[in-house]
């Protein structure tokens, strides 16, 4: 291991300082372009294997592939240069060709003797040495002067070290109004109210610790989990529908997982537990088991919804390919969310750029396969875990008895009506026949036609109105003909209906959980590598495990130890493996993503790809220190926020400085805060908060979506609801894959196929059209105007100031204030004279503010 480390650090040396080598320079190129046909999986076109330098010397059918020192005699180079190889359209880049040529010219060196033979799949020391696969180290915090240390924390020490090295200086702290807005959006995704801003500004003049206290208050707010839950739901690919095909079947119980996530984050559930519950909550409670589930157990089962988020076509088709796709997509979600590697690329063949073997993909699959059993598939409905409790059953029994009693009473009443109706009907036949008629009618009442004599039958056919049954519907027809009873009868019917409804309303609603669990079975399902990813071509068997490349850091075979579990225990063992504190990827991937949500850019800019195709960390020591600190402080996300948000780096102003701009325009080194656009959901939530319409109702079934008259997907139904549910926070809006609400989609809310590691940020005209003309924004602006009028009265100057304060959380500058007030006066005059011209003008001002940059961007 020491040896490997030495090599790893030598990799970091600038290229020109070291000689080109096969392992470091040439092999990665050949791996990406040539291994596929020349070496991998027994494929040896032209009898040539290019996986080792000595194989190149040896060559194939056409002779040696290279001749050291003699590029002109090297067939490999010739074939690459004349475009003969590689076959297909994807050729080598000129710089890659040049590198190979240079390497051959310099004598085709290797770093060390090559292995005698390649056993299975060969991972080089260079590949193992890739930064993300090395253990997390806890670097010493760089020294700071006493003065600096008083103002800053460890995060700043790492950031400053880099800044100093690049002759950059940090920016000054942002003003309190900017800071509070930034902190609110970052932690709870909503703007501060005008009062909160004023109070904070005052407080910050008086007490240096006011900002720290602000962070604490925000961390304790229930909206915190809604904000950070949304980030996690992106990564896991949360959706309220199955996707896969046009049916896009709904997932009626997926929301319980969403609520679990929100509650877990609000409770600051340590992330190691959070991950373990999501991967193996069922195994934590020894499920399946007899008896009723306790609340805590339901939580753990709900957490496994994580493994049920992939698009799932098996709700609507029985095809094997659809089942296979569910497992494949789940492996991708698990690996991209927790490992930050593009393991999905290794489904069909070894990864082209990273040392991820094809069998690694299937080893991860084997972790899941006892739960997502390809051989004995359960469609989504069959997986639902019912939440019926003994109390439910008891209550149901009791209420059913009540219903029965109601029916008995009611039937007595109906019988009485039947009797008096018959008497009334008998009045309509000749008196002499009444006795006979009554007897016949009573017989009919008993068993219909069975015991009637032929005469009686005929008689009743002649006088069908004597057939008075005791059913509500029938009696109604008869009663209608006898005025004196109508009212009484109708009242009885209505009362009965109400009585039944009242009992039914008390019936327990029995929900279910979208969980992942295993059917205890021995032997366990077998996982095989699918040749070329084709599920109809199974190859060698593999056991559960993590990426092979990590095997020198920690054991990568997943060997469940707990024999008491009814299930395989694989996922539980895998979760323990990931959260042991020794895994090189998990904590780095997590803290990097948290960082990204605070700064708009991760320390590793490719949050979902820590491999060779991703970007290297801008601050590798800081990343490691944060990962180490995160783990040693109990995997607490809230602690992470405290650490980062209390740093001077976070509190910096976002203003650009020309001299720093020249050195680091992209602000990779963090000499200022980034300006960030609000996400789709945050724009909507903030709008509702400002207009005063936000419905704070938390948790539970999602708000539906519908197509409006213009075939646009809108939140809620076509008509306004009575309870304002369409104004709940966006995280509670149904996430149908095939029906993303337009107002969110246009601002880049993600389509989950299968998940989203980082959002796009587009700036397009349809967004502006939406802000200018959509009925949502127009209605909200009218509501905003009403609010401003009620708070500021009729004076345009006061109105302008109040609207400004509410929208941006700060007082307008003098010029802004004058301009806004003048605009109001002018616009009022321009609108058709009428009682509401002033209100409309104010609404148009409010709308402009809600669509303006100070509202849409966090500074």
């Amino acid at each position: 291991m020491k040896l490997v480390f030495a090599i790893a650090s030598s990799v970091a040396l600038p290229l020109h300082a070291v000689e080109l080598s096969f392992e470091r320079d040439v092999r990665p190129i050949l791996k990406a372009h040539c291994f596929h046909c020349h070496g991998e999986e027994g494929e040896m076109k032209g009898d040539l294997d290019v996986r080792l330098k000595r194989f190149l010397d040896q060559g194939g059918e056409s002779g040696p592939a290279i001749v050291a020192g003699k590029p002109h005699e090297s067939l490999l180079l010739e074939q690459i240069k004349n475009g003969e190889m590689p076959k297909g359209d994807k050729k080598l880049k000129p710089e890659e060709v040049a590198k190979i040529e240079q390497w051959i010219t310099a004598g085709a060196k290797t770093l060390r003797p090559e292995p005698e033979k390649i056993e299975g799949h060969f991972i080089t020391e260079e590949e193992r040495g890739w930064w993300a696969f090395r253990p997390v180290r806890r670097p010493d915090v760089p020294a700071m002067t006493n003065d600096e240390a008083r103002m800053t924390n460890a995060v700043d020490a790492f950031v400053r070290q880099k800044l100093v090295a690049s002759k950059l200086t940090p920016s000054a702290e942002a003003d309190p109004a900017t800071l509070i807005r930034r902190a609110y959006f970052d932690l709870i995704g909503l703007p501060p109210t005008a009062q909160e801003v004023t109070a904070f500004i005052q407080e910050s003049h008086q007490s240096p610790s006011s900002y720290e206290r602000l962070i604490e208050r925000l961390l304790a707010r229930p909206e915190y989990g809604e904000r950070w839950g949304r980030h996690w739901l992106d990564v896991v690919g949360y959706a309220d529908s199955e996707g896969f095909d046009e049916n896009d079947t709904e997932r009626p119980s997926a929301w319980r997982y969403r609520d679990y996530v929100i509650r877990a984050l609000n409770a600051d559930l340590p992330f190691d537990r959070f991950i373990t519950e999501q991967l193996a909550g069922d195994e934590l409670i020894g499920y399946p088991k007899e008896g009723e589930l306790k609340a805590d157990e339901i939580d753990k089962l709900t957490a496994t919804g994580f493994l049920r988020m992939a698009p799932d076509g098996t709700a609507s088709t029985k095809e094997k390919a659809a089942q296979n796709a569910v497992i494949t997509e789940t492996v991708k979600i698990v690996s991209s969310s927790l490992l930050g590697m593009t393991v999905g690329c290794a489904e069909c063949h070894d990864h082209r750029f990273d040392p991820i073997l094809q069998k690694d993909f299937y080893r991860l699959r084997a972790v899941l396969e006892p739960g997502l059993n390809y051989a004995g598939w359960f469609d989504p409905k069959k997986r639902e875990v019912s939440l019926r409790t003994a109390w439910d059953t008891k209550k149901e029994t009791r209420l059913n008895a009540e219903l029965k009693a109601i029916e008995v009473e009611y039937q007595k009443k109906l019988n009485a009506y039947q009797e008096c109706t018959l008497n009334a009907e008998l009045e309509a036949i000749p008196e002499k026949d009444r006795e006979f008629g009554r007897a016949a009618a009573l017989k009919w009442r008993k068993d219909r036609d069975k015991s009637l004599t032929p005469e009686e039958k005929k008689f009743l056919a002649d006088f069908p109105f004597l057939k008075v049954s005791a059913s509500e519907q029938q009696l109604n027809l008869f009663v209608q003909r006898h005025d004196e009873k109508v009212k009484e009868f109708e009242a009885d019917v209505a009362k009965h209906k109400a009585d039944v409804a009242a009992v039914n309303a008390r019936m327990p609603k029995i929900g279910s959980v979208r969980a992942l669990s295993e059917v205890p079975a021995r032997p366990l399902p077998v996982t095989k590598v699918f040749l070329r990813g084709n599920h109809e071509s199974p190859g060698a068997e593999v056991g559960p495990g993590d990426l092979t490349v990590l095997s020198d850091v920690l054991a990568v075979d997943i060997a469940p130890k707990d024999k008491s579990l009814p299930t395989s225990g694989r996922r539980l063992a895998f979760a323990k493996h990931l959260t042991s504190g020794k895994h090189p990827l998990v904590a780095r991937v997590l803290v990097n993503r948290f960082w990204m949500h605070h700064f708009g850019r991760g320390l590793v800019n490719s949050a979902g790809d820590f491999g060779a195709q991703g970007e290297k960390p801008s601050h590798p020591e800081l990343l490691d220190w944060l990962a180490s600190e995160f783990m040693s402080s109990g995997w607490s996300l809230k602690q992470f926020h405290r650490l980062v948000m209390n740093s001077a780096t976070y509190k910096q102003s976002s203003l650009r400085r020309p001299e720093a701009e020249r050195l680091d325009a992209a602000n990779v080194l963090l000499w200022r805060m980034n300006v960030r656009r609000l996400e789709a959901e945050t724009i909507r939530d903030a709008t509702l908060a400002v207009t005063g319409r936000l419905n704070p109702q938390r948790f539970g079934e999602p708000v539906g979506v519908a197509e409006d008259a213009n075939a646009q997907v809108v939140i809620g139904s076509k008509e306004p609801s009575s309870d304002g549910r369409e104004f709940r926070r966006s995280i509670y809006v149904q996430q149908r894959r095939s029906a993303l609400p337009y107002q969110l989609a246009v601002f880049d809310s993600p389509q989950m196929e299968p998940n989203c590691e980082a959002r796009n940020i587009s700036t397009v005209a349809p967004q502006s059209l939406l802000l200018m003309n959509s009925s949502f924004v127009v209605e909200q602006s009218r509501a905003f105007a009403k609010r401003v009028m009620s708070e500021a009265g009729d004076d345009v100057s006061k109105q302008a100031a109040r609207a400004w304060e509410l929208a941006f959380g700060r007082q307008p500058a003098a010029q802004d204030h004058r301009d806004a007030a003048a605009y109001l006066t002018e616009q009022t005059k321009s609108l058709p004279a009428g009682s509401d011209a002033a209100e409309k003008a104010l609404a148009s001002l409010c709308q402009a503010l809600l669509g303006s940059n100070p509202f849409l961007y966090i500074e």
Partner: protein
Amino acid sequence: MNSDFCQSRRHFIGSNAFNLSAIGLATLLNEDGLLAATVPEKPALTPIVYDTLPKKPHFQPRAKAMISLFMGGGPSHMDMFDPKPLLNKWDGKLFPGGEIKFDNTGGATRTVMGSPFKFSKHGESGIEMSELIPHMGGIADEMTLIRSMNLKGIRNHVAGMKAMDTGTGLNGKPALGSWITYGLGSESRDLPAFVALVIRKNPPGSPFWSSGLLPSIYQGTHVREQEPRIMNLDPPEYLKGSAQDRQLAFLERVNSRHLAQHPGELDLQARIASYQLAARMQTAATDALDIKKESEATRKLYGADDDRTKALAEACIIARRLVERGVRFVQIWDYSWDMHENINEALVKRCGASDQPSAALVKDLKSRGLLDSTLVFWGGEMGRLPVIQTRGKAGKPGRDHNTDGFSIWMAGGGVKQGHIHGATDEWGLFATEGVVHHHDYLATVMHLFGLDATKLAYKRNGRAETILGSATGNVVNGILA
């Protein structure tokens, strides 16, 4: 970037209604600097700003724009484009061949049904088409008729339309129009790059103009058959006219003062520019969609004043007006060709509604010198079976789906004129010669635009996604002019 474009841009700058600020100007000039950018091969995973500025194709293009008349539901190839005399010989007899795959077994039979429609040769090329579509016959010498379409492994409408439009039958993949605008951007700064016009009803499984995993900027803008034709294009009632101009001017002052505190912040600049574009779009799109401006002769050519042809005629005219103004990709969706019963009467009606406008579009583009650079597509996701389906009223049979063999045609944009490609077997059941799968069709369209379908990729979750996915798509070289 061609100089005409730059000129029109400058022209626009000079005549902008919003008194473009220096910053706005800088943004636009900055955009100009980006114009030479090549096709984004591998965008980064993390936030980057996408645009629809014109991009260089991979190689010399033949088409600059496309109008796709997507006739969903399955126009009957053996009644329109692909004469099968054998069917008439066997009419009423049991089909002697092998297995027939039915998508709808309700009323399925193996009784052969001949076509009651007469076929004749058209133009110098002598392409045979039926009496149902005399106007299309009139443009035979302009078109390449592909009689050998086949959707390998795909059945039914939704999956079929997805396959033709996105390369797979699955959900969530970007539409062809999204890929092309992603690769090439748009020639218009005032209009959306990709427009989907829907007539009659939304096809099942729509929208087929979604950008899927590509950024939303490449999504098709939905233009409806009636007003409001574009969503959110019209100002709220009380702000119509100068009131909204005044409001936007105020907004721009707020944004400009804000930007002055953040000089150089590109996102803030881009937002200001996007409002300006939106405002231009309100004018430009309103103008582009105003077909009242068309001459009497043009309206007559398309049949815009005849109730039977009006819907498609107006859509075609709008499509042409959009392409004239630099829109890259216009797709007209007409899902009305699914004829399980009473097919012979239904075809007369449907062809009556479609024949004249479709042919008029080609003629009109040609007379305006636009046909060379505009690819016109006509067709759907399937054809129909040679046997009777007796679903519905007795004596009025229909035909079930056939994704194994059907016809489409293309014109302009670099395809051969008066050319027939491929063939089905003698029953019209399977494409047998020169088979064109959906991937081949998509690769060919991309090729005509100067794009390599295997190279135009978008990196997501570490994978380079292309329209072909893991499938192979071969450019159908035989149809290239």
